[in-house]
């Protein structure tokens, strides 16, 4: 009795201290649901928040709940937006979030965003609203220009990290680099590899000179070897380098100074860039290969054949490797023999339409799995795959947590047996108990989904394209994968039956995407009616159809009222794109005309 009542007088500071050991945000989410006292303590002491879907909660509400927020991570558009399946102007605006944070969380230090639309005005606001702002990470974002970057550089006095990965940035000239004030010496990480235009080289050199803490520097293609050499002489403590253009003359001063500069960088562990790399410049890199843990050659189509082999055979400590398929099965065989510690491999297609001869095949993958048993993360684009290869791979590498295989031609069967690839992918889910992310391709029937539902208990994200026969396929997955968070499907014959098979399941998931499937407006409306806690959004081209009819004088003037479209009778119309997600924020207020929330 006494012990029980003592619990109620546990001082808040002690509980807060205990909570500080909980860094994993799902754990923190869980403790906040125990009781009101714990909810309050947790929310006031929370420093990091991760919002996997920016429309799952209103920005104001998130900001109000966590006033002490220091680090915010946001994800916007659905994953398939990366592949042009989401029309522009869909949403994912960063503005409302930055504004809400500016009002309620002035101590914000870090902002990480993925697939969001950020404007220059928002970046201006960011630069002025948060005096302690330290880190900005933008991945696959768009909507801003180098002017926005200049604002951040100029006004964020203690900026440590500016990391721009694969964004679409409007280039308004090289002057943004000059905006870093002379007294800014705090930079630890700078990545502008995705900028397409020129860079002010002198400014860059000066900036590097006054940044003694610089550990990560990723340059863009416009930076020549001369500048690279100068920069590297200035920062021998660099751990992560993305080169600019690696074109140099054998007898040039630039080349010689590059070699000596590289040799001084004893701490270099990660290399990327290699734009237009000449074999000669690769020679300069050999001395540091033995210590490399990360290597990204996926933007270097010039590094192939013997050049690649000569380079990779030195990289004995490599953990992560990203390459193009132009290295071929032969190149992958060398990787398998040299890189025994390899954990992550990504092989990207150099020829997007499989028009040329096959470059990597199942042989390359089998070789890798044989030589690199520690492999746990794979992204592999290839022309073809066999069931027996997949079975071998899963036997050799039972530790896969991420397995993504993309066979370039949709619905392609096993070329050896002409059968679907159900057994091969089935073997992967059976053996890899820790599989969290899975993408499948090639000819697949409902059987593969039966296996996934039965064995992939740890699965969190599943991507399916051009697969399955009937509604049963999708139903297997919804019923069987207990930990499923994201399901994205395109061009599969799943209809209303599958969609409505287990509607409460969607409340346990972050989101569902279905495009070019067999679902109708009636099915989507039914889902929306049954599950008010979900936003059921359809993206449709009917608007464009109506407008064309209007121009041809067929249709009358339409009112702007969406309800008129939705309720004008024909519920049997097929829905082209469906996006369903759980939310506490209600229907979107910023949805464009072509997005209808049912």
């Amino acid at each position, binding site marked *: 009795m006494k012990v029980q009542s003592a619990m109620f007088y546990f001082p808040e500071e002690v509980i807060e201290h205990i909570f500080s050991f909980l860094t994993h945000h799902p754990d923190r989410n869980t403790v906040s649901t125990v009781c009101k006292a714990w909810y309050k303590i947790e929310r006031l002491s929370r420093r990091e928040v991760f919002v996997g879907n920016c429309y799952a909660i209103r920005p104001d509400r998130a900001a109000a709940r966590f006033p002490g927020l220091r680090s915010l991570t946001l994800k916007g558009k659905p994953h398939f937006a990366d*592949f042009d399946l989401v029309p522009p102007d869909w949403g994912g605006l960063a503005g409302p979030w930055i504004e809400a944070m500016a009002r309620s969380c002035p101590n914000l230090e870090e902002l990480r965003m993925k697939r969001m639309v950020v404007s220059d005005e928002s970046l201006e606001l960011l630069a002025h609203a948060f005096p302690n702002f330290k880190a900005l990470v933008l991945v696959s974002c768009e909507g801003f220009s180098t002017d926005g970057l200049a604002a951040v550089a100029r006004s964020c006095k203690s900026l440590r990290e500016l990391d721009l990965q694969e964004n679409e940035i*409007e280039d308004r*000239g090289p002057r943004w680099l000059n905006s870093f004030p002379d007294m800014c010496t705090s930079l630890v990480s700078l990545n502008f590899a*995705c900028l397409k235009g020129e860079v002010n080289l002198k400014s860059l050199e000066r900036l590097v000179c006054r940044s003694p803490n610089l550990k990560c520097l990723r340059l863009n293609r416009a930076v020549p070897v001369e500048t690279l050499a100068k920069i590297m002489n200035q920062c021998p403590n660099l751990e992560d380098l993305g080169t600019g253009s690696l074109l140099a003359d054998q007898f040039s001063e630039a080349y010689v100074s590059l070699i000596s500069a590289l040799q001084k960088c004893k701490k270099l562990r990660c290399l990327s860039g290699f734009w237009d790399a000449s074999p000669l410049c690769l020679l300069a890199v050999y001395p540091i290969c033995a210590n490399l843990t990360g290597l990204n050659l996926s*933007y270097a*189509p010039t590094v192939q054949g013997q050049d690649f082999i000569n380079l990779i055979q030195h990289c004995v400590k490599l953990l992560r490797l990203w390459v193009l398929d132009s290295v071929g099965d032969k190149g992958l065989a060398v990787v398998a023999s040299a890189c025994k510690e390899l954990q992550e491999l990504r092989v990207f297609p150099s020829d997007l339409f499989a*028009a040329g001869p096959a470059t990597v095949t199942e042989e390359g993958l089998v070789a890798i799995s044989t030589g690199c048993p520690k492999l746990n993360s794979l992204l592999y684009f290839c022309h073809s795959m066999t069931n027996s290869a997949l079975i071998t791979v899963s036997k050799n590498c039972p530790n896969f947590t991420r397995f993504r295989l993309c066979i370039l031609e949709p619905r392609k069967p096993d070329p050896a047996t002409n059968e679907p690839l159900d057994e091969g992918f089935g073997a992967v889910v059976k053996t890899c108990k820790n599989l969290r992310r899975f993408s499948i391709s090639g000819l697949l029937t409902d059987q593969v989904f039966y296996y996934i539902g039965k064995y992939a208990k740890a699965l969190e994200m599943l991507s399916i*394209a051009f697969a399955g026969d009937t509604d049963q396929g999708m139903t297997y997955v919804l019923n069987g994968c207990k930990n499923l968070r994201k399901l994205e499907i395109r061009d599969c014959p799943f209809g209303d039956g599958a969609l409505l098979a287990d509607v409460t399941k969607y409340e346990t998931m972050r989101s569902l995407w279905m495009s070019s499937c067999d679902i109708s407006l009636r099915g989507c409306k039914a889902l929306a009616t049954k599950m008010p806690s979900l936003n059921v959004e359809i993206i449709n081209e009917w608007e464009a159809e109506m407008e064309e009819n209007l121009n041809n004088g067929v249709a009358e003037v339409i009112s702007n009222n969406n309800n008129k479209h939705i309720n004008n009778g024909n519920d049997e119309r097929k829905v082209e794109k469906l996006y369903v997600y759980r939310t506490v924020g209600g229907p979107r207020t910023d949805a464009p005309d072509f997005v209808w929330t049912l």
Partner: protein
Amino acid sequence: MSVETERSSTESDVSGLDYEETALTLGIPGGARATGAELERKRGFSRTVDLTSRIGASEDRSDESPDTNTAGSAKAPAPKARVVGWPPVRNYRKNALKSSNKYVKVAVDGAPYLRKVDLEAYGGYEELLSALQEMFSCFTIRNYPNEERKLVDPIHGTEYVPTYEDKDGDWMLVGDVPWKMFVDACKRLRLMKSSEATNLGLILLLLNSLLFELERRSSACFIIIFFSLSFLFV
């Protein structure tokens, strides 16, 4: 196929669609025609592409629908059908690996040497003009209300008009056509002193309105006048 038929289809295409849609806008706001022309422009473009790639082709093209035109003028042989968003590779990566670097010479009237710019490096006219401004660092960009863009040398006050030579060898004003179309068509750039450009503009304006008038008259008459005027212009 007779020369006559080819010429008449060329004429109807040129005067019917291309000419109006890509007509120079010197001093003439195109606002009134904008909305109707918007949709037409897409089809007009596909016909233009078809025109430039298949001059001299034997069949009568005037009946074909815009869709088959664009499909036919696609560059890659592509025996397999292209599916949207497949293979699943981010646009950024697709664009980064495109080996197309479109370097064109840039000449500035009065400068002793030329420069080169990579048109593929820019996303639009704004970026290109900024880059030109940086390159020939004595200029600033001045925007005129009718959306013409000019580069100005602040020291001497001379204005430069950005022009380009297209695939047909004609000198055009930068900024009239969609960006992608411009990148495809541009062979070289020239920053022309504004005074010269005005003359050029006036002559082309004259040409434009004359041809518009002549459209209704016989094709032979149109050809004669067109050639004589172009001698004047050259």
